[in-house]
């Protein structure tokens, strides 16, 4: 139990009347990559957003149950969501760059967390984050161009860089490669590999191949239920649940 980075029990999420997550329990291991898979609309993003309490911002959304990070209940009233989110970073499904320059987009996190004391340090953080996200070459000579003027895939990588720049302990990535070409995808996967050594990563993906490539454990969601969670190898070769098998085989939707 204590080996889990994130542990959830009996999580229920409602959007108004709609019951979006039904009694989900899961343990997410530290220094490993967990993949969430499942058909569109099954609740992956919703559950992901529970882990750093991003659902707080949706007024109609109600979360019940227990989620702990490092054994600390994150829905405890004593918990400070700001600190939580600094610790648990997030890359959103829809790229949402700030209407600022590319540089400012990435520097924003380090600035508010005071990660750099000098300008040059900040420059370093920005550059290395962009590089990790595989965007450096494309933007290095237009860092002061607006982030909103980038292409879809570039924006996505910018958001990855932005999240990475604050070095959170847990990184939640909601389909981080959806708009990326294979090479950029590979670059991001490489980043995930690298990050895994020190951090805990949860990634939502629709690509079975990607899940298989990058994750150690995989969780399968369906209609708001967590169908099954296990080692990735096991899930992809010998799932317990029929639905998992069917989904992986591409047999329902």
């Amino acid at each position, binding site marked *: 139990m204590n080996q889990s980075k994130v542990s959830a029990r009996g999580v229920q999420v409602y959007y108004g009347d709609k019951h979006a997550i039904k009694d989900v329990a899961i343990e997410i291991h530290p220094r490993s990559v967990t993949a969430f898979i499942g058909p569109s609309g099954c609740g992956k993003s919703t559950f992901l957003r529970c882990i750093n309490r991003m659902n707080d911002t949706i007024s109609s959304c109600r979360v019940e149950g227990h989620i702990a*990070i*490092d054994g*600390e209940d*994150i829905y*405890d009233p*004593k*918990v*400070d969501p*700001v*600190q*939580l989110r*600094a*610790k648990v970073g997030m890359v959103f499904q829809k790229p949402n760059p700030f209407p600022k*320059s590319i*540089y400012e987009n990435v520097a924003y996190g380090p600035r*508010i*967390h*005071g990660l750099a004391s000098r300008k040059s340090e900040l*420059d*370093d953080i*920005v*550059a*290395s984050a962009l*590089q990790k996200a595989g965007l*450096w070459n494309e933007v290095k*000579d*237009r*860092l*002061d161009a607006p982030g909103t003027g980038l292409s879809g895939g570039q924006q996505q990588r910018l958001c990855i860089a932005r999240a990475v720049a604050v*070095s959170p*302990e847990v990184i939640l990535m909601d389909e981080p490669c959806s708009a990326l070409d294979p090479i950029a995808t590979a670059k991001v996967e490489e980043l995930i590999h690298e990050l895994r050594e*020190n951090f805990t990563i949860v990634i939502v993906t629709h690509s079975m191949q990607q899940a298989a490539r990058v994750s150690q454990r995989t969780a399968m969601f369906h209609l708001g239920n967590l169908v099954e969670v296990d080692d990735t190898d096991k899930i992809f070769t010998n799932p317990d649940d029929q639905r998992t098998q069917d989904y992986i085989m591409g047999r329902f939707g």
Partner: protein
Amino acid sequence: MIDISVPADRETVSPSKSILTVDARTRQRHAAEARFRLMGKIAVAISVLALVGLLTSILSNGLSSFRQTYITLNVYLDPAKLDKQGNRAPEAIAKVTTFSYAPLIQKALTDAMAAKGIAIEGLNAKSAFELISKEAPAHLRRYVISDPSVIGETVSFDLLASGRIDGYYKDRVTMESAELDRNISPEQLMLADALRQAGILTTKFNWDFFTAPDSSDTRPEASGLGVAILGSAYMMLIVLVLSLPLGVAASIYLEEFAPQNRFTDLIEVNIANLAAVPSIVFGILGLAVFINFVGLPQSAPIVGGLVLTLMTLPTIIIATRAALKAVPPSIRDAALGVGASKMQSIFHHVLPLAMPGILTGTIIGLAQALGETAPLLLIGMVAFVREYPAGPPEGFFDPASALPVQVYNWTQRGDPAFVERASGAIIVLLVFLVAMNLIAIILRRRFERRW
């Protein structure tokens, strides 16, 4: 251009931080957050406090104007005075001036005092009669002219008490101040008390305040807001009907269609600048254009409405443009992408999303227009008007005053009774404002959404 190079990789793995114990930096940030939030609360509190303060002072000064003191007398409408020929000919009766009615009332009062056994030492009949408003004879005269057959009968009238007597029951006048006041004496106040005891003098709700026209300085107790309310209503109707569509149309063109060039920049600056033009200058414009050039009548709500429209337009345009600008381009793209024309995408999608801002502009613009006197000064609406304008649309061309004008006028008058009435007029103006904006406020709430 920011020019930086890639550094050597820096892998700093700090030990995991608890989220329950807040570290120093976060504590600082939270303190900043709390301060910021508190500042927000204080700001809201300040403004609400200011509002409450102003409203209480208005209400405490003005609510009393909704009640008025009356003296109920049975007046004998003496034919010997009112219809000397005795044939009830309306023309002849119309010739009888109010000066002839006054003695009837004075007599009625003396009789009433005698009947109740009221006698105040050192008070003659003439001074006693000063308790009754100068409006009373006019009231009687109107009554008789409307129905000459009542001559010769004894009719019971609720007559207005004079302003000082009314003030006595509203704590504006006291026995001590009456000593010094050359318009009232303590004896008169004692008489008033006696009449009150006898049930002749009563205080009632003052409907006339909302319906009666203005009155001259000598009879504050009779003055009302009827003409002003009509005038303001007419003007606001014109302002609303003209400024909202014109303002929104102009903003749409400027924000969505106009090419971005020097010329449109000029227009943009120009509109912002129009907002900074003092309102009296709009009055100068209105006088020159609408009255002298077009030949519209003086003192008429139509001119006032047009001038206020021009004055409100920049406010609405600025607010609308800001709101249009705030709608994300992706919404426009979505509409254009399914083959909507630009016009359709604006009217179907952008405008509804910009609605809250547009309505705010309207609310603020109308609030300003409703309370404005300076431009009306030049087009002749800051005036003493006692005749009601006709119904719309002819009434738009009749002389009228307006609520702020009434406030402005009353605050300038010598008799302190007008202070209360000015505050009462302000209450009415604010109620008018809220009523006028209610639809906008409700609509705005419905249109508000986040995306």
